[in-house]
């Protein structure tokens, strides 16, 4: 029983990182119907931004370092949209997808050239001491860093939910998802809403990268594997849906962690992708996705 609780705790940490990435896939898809295949690499750059900041400013606490990494990565996301995607918005879908793949390869090589291909870890800025009261209650090992990752991620998700559902900016983002051609008639600058969406998605991915770089490790190609996982999570949950991305992420992480713990680590990806196929057979638009719009 303890080990199950322990595994679920690990799954929560991994799921939190998946969710921070998956939200960006979902939000960008929502506004411009693009699977942004560079998004996993934006997550990777966010992690490296955290690493470089941590190495350069050894005095900087995490609460300053992480927002800074998020800000830098947000600017990167906005720049990518502006330079690579905007002029292709009216072009064929395939051109946009291929451009996104190209941007991803560019980022991987840029980081490899700049920082090197080695696996790195962000020197931890979080207390790794055990959380005594929780350990006593659950009977498993719980450290502060793990708890922080889970709760800060959840807080970011809650903040995003509030922005999307409780502000006029969020209303505009949802309106773009509904019918972007009408949005300018409301006096809303469509390009700006799309840019803000990229900024938010990239910033969340950077938060995931910084956490991942502390809890696990960083390398220039990590965005491929994790990007795919997060993408799968977003699709399972229903791409375009924020709640879906979070649900899919925790679900996928749970399945993965339990597979590794009780079956075999070789089966991890096989089961994750199998789950995707199975769930999509039952729910073609994802668990919380909207069915293909029946526009009148």
């Amino acid at each position, binding site marked *: 029983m303890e080990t199950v609780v322990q595994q679920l705790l690990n799954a929560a940490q991994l799921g939190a990182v998946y969710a921070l990435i998956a939200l960006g896939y979902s939000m960008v898809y929502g506004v411009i119907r693009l699977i942004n295949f560079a998004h996993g690499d934006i997550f990777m750059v966010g992690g490296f931004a955290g690493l470089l900041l941590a190495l350069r400013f050894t005095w900087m606490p995490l609460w300053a370092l992480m927002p800074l990494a998020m800000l830098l990565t947000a600017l990167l996301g906005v720049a990518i949209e502006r330079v690579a995607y905007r002029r292709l918005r009216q072009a064929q879908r395939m051109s946009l997808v291929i451009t996104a793949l190209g941007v991803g390869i560019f980022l991987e090589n840029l980081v490899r050239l700049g920082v090197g291909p080695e696996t790195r870890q962000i020197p931890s800025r979080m207390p790794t001491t055990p959380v005594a009261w929780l350990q006593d209650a659950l009977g498993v090992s719980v450290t502060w860093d793990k708890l922080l990752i889970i709760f800060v991620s959840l807080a970011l998700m809650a903040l995003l939910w509030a922005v999307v559902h409780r502000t006029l900016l969020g209303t505009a983002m949802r309106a773009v998802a509904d*019918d972007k051609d*009408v949005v300018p*008639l*409301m*006096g809303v600058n469509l390009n700006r809403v799309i840019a803000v969406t990229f900024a938010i998605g990239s910033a969340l991915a950077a938060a995931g990268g910084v956490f991942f770089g502390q809890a696990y490790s960083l390398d220039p190609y990590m965005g491929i594997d994790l990007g795919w996982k997060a993408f799968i999570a977003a699709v399972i949950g229903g791409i375009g849906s924020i709640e879906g991305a979070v649900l899919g992420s925790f679900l996928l992480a749970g399945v993965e962690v339990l597979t590794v713990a009780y079956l075999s680590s070789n089966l991890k990806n096989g089961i994750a992708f199998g789950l995707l196929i199975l769930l999509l057979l039952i729910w073609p638009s994802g668990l919380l996705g909207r069915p293909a719009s029946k526009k009148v």
Partner: protein
Amino acid sequence: MSLLRLEQVSVAYGAIRALHGVDLEVREGEIVSLLGANGAGKSTILRAVSRMLPLQGGDILLGGRSVRATPAHELVALGVAHVPEGRGIFPSLTVQENLALATWTRRERRHVEEATRRVFRLFPRLAERRTQAGGTLSGGEQQMLAVGRALMTGCRLLLLDEPSMGLSPLLVREVFRAFQEINAEGTTLLLVEQNAHMALKIAHRGCVLENGRIVLEGPAAELAGHPRVREAYLGEAGASSPPCPGTPGSSR
């Protein structure tokens, strides 16, 4: 005073010319009805005015100032609201959110409250449905929402693209009564319609568009009596019988 003025406006979709040098004037406080068959270019004129389409030639003046280079979203701040063909409401947003989004450029509390009160007074059903998703409304309610939403921008000029489309004769009368009220409160209307009966009944002036060209224009009452209009748009073969403005237009 002229609020809107189109001068030799030409618009093309790719290689296909949709407007061939259209001249049109809408004066402050007027209701101008723009009539024409399917494909004549009525929607294209409205899209050109709200700057959703680039001009190939000519110019569009708003209050004497050229808006040729103004992007669509900035036109809203200049007082132009466009209710597009097919309504264009946001189906997943609630009625309230649809209305709120249109206050993007006018967020002062006083304006938002006053505009909301006005919209709910004109269309009481929207008030009843304020927390309902736009996509779940009936066709008539969606049209009311589209018009109400446009009013939330605080517009001086309201562009309406076939607002009677798909509505029952009873509902058509209801929304047209609202248009007259909106106009009486000081908003200028440019109304595109195939329903010529209703459109000419409430308008001060009218124009007829054929194949991207204005072919007739004049006071609404005069147009309603013009043989060409009576034959082509009021469905009166021979055009000898007097027009009967009381009967609702042929509804689809």
